[in-house]
């Protein structure tokens, strides 16, 4: 039987406010355990939370950026459950009146098609603390530095049908959140993570199948692998006549396998009720319009600008603008060297490759936009060839040096002295008379061979245009 995959995502993004959602403790990452804590975020009885106004502003910003409606009347609710990373024994979240509802945006797939993914809601809530295994006692240690860091949870409609669509959705969402500056979206640090709801149903069936929820995926790679694993797992169950059990699952990227977490009975009975310690939120049209008018340029707009003004191919413009850091890098390097087309080509090939190979964020590239622009300038001015440029690029990363310095140290300057090149060409042509005959007999390959021989003698540093021209003179 053919099955259709149905995927919905809940993405949690830590907001980049200075302080926690309900107290003045810093949200700074790291820090000694339990040093960014106070009676409010450790859940001491009687401590009263007060909502950070920036949290509301950032959530509304995110809502507007994904085309959602903003609820004029909103409130916060208690979600009750016991887990040692949540010291109050309840999380403060939003139940029936989230700040934002009914948004969505288009994703672009590899084959060039676009698809709209709906966003059901965005609500604010507080993050939990961290549990660390204590090797000394065999017990567990609780660090509450992250407890109370503000989160937005962005809940999608079950609109995705493959790992590719899910990854494209998270990539785009991450880009938008970065552009509007409400979250640093560092997946390695857990400031952006996704829960994946996935089910299968026979093609043509209207009702959804039983879904599983895989928690806390914190890389695109993990999302892709987890989804493909889970599709296969559910398919095998259904094909052998079994039933998928609704459960919460954990993904281990290291082993490439998913596990069912100990399923808590009554897990979904959170007994939400209006949070009595926090007053409702009422937002005026003025407040919302003011945020709307001050939204920065979003990826979609930037992409259009790259296509129209800089004549980049649509696919390339889409990839570059999907990450704010990458797009900023592109703009700075282009401005510096005046050749956006070249910068874009390098990004699409080498820069994306090294980021993937080393699993680094575009904000942490091992060279600055300025340094990279110097490399382009060396190529554009004819000081080095494109081929040598690729070598300098690698050295620039491994040696952490300016490209000019590398070229100078290794004597890589391109030879454009025509008389010097002519000497080599004369010698190569004289040594290979058969190639001339071959070329004239229609074997174009002979030209490449002669150019290659000259390049070899010039140790790869000859100006290819000049070599070509001089050889062609013989071949005429």
């Amino acid at each position, binding site marked *: 039987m053919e099955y259709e995959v149905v995927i919905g995502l809940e993405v949690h993004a830590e907001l980049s406010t200075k302080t926690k959602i309900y107290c*003045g403790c810093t949200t700074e990452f790291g820090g000694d355990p339990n040093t960014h804590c106070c*009676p409010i975020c*450790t859940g001491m009885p009687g401590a009263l939370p007060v909502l950070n106004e920036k949290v509301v502003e950032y959530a509304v910003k995110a809502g507007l950026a994904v085309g959602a409606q903003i609820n004029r009347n909103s409130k916060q609710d208690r979600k*009750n459950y016991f887990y040692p990373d949540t010291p109050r024994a309840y999380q403060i979240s939003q139940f029936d009146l989230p700040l934002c509802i009914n948004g969505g945006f288009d994703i672009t797939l590899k084959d060039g098609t676009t698809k709209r993914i709906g966003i059901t809601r965005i609500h604010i809530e507080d993050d939990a603390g961290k549990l660390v295994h204590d090797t000394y006692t065999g017990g567990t240690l609780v660090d*509450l530095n992250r407890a109370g860091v503000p989160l937005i949870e962005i809940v999608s409609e079950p609109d995705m049908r493959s790992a590719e669509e899910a990854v494209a959705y998270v990539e785009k969402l991450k880009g938008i959140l970065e552009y509007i500056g409400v979250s640093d979206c560092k997946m390695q640090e857990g400031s952006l993570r996704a829960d994946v709801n996935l089910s299968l149903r026979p093609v043509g069936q209207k009702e959804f199948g039983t879904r599983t929820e895989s928690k806390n995926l914190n890389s695109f790679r993990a999302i892709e692998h987890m989804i493909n694993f889970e599709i296969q797992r559910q398919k095998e169950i259904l094909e052998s006549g079994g039933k998928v059990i609704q459960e919460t699952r954990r993904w281990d990227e290291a082993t490439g396998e998913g596990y069912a977490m100990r399923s808590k009975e*009554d897990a979904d009975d959170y*007994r939400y009720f209006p949070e009595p310690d926090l007053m*409702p*939120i009422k937002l005026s049209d003025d407040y919302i319009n003011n945020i709307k008018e001050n939204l920065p340029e979003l990826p979609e707009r930037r992409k259009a600008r790259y296509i129209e003004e800089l004549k980049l191919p649509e696919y390339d413009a889409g990839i570059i603008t999907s990450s704010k850091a990458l797009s900023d890098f592109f703009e700075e390097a282009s401005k510096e060297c005046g050749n956006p087309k070249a910068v874009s080509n390098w990004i699409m090939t080498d820069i994306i490759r090294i980021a993937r190979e080393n699993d680094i964020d575009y904000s942490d590239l091992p060279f600055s936009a300025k340094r990279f622009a110097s490399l382009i300038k060396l190529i554009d001015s004819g000081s080095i060839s494109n081929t040598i440029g690729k070598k300098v690029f690698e050295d620039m990363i491994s040696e952490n040096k300016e490209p000019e310095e590398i070229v100078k140290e290794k004597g890589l300057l391109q030879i454009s002295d025509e008389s010097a090149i002519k000497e080599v060409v004369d010698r190569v042509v004289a040594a290979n008379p058969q190639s001339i005959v071959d070329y004239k007999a229609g074997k174009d390959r002979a030209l490449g061979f002669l150019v290659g021989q000259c390049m070899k003698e010039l140790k790869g540093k000859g100006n290819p245009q000049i070599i070509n021209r001089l050889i062609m003179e013989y071949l005429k």
Partner: protein
Amino acid sequence: MEITKKDIEHIANLSMLNLSEDEVDGYAKDMQEIIAFANQINEINTDGLEESAFALDSYNVFRKDEVRESFDRELLMQNAPSSNGVAYQIPPVIE
């Protein structure tokens, strides 16, 4: 609305309470009375009133996003039954 023994067992389970058979019976009776008492509120006519989750006419109580000094860790740890001075110690948590 009738509160059954099953309801009490469910709530006790969610609250991580171990109740004896007698206690379950007792709480079922008590809770029945409590809910009946609270249900009196349903008799009030609320026609034409705006729905609200709060009794106070207060909203938008916000705080500026300004960092304040956190608490002394030693003091925070004193409130826990067990700590190693740096973090709270709890029995092993296995997922």
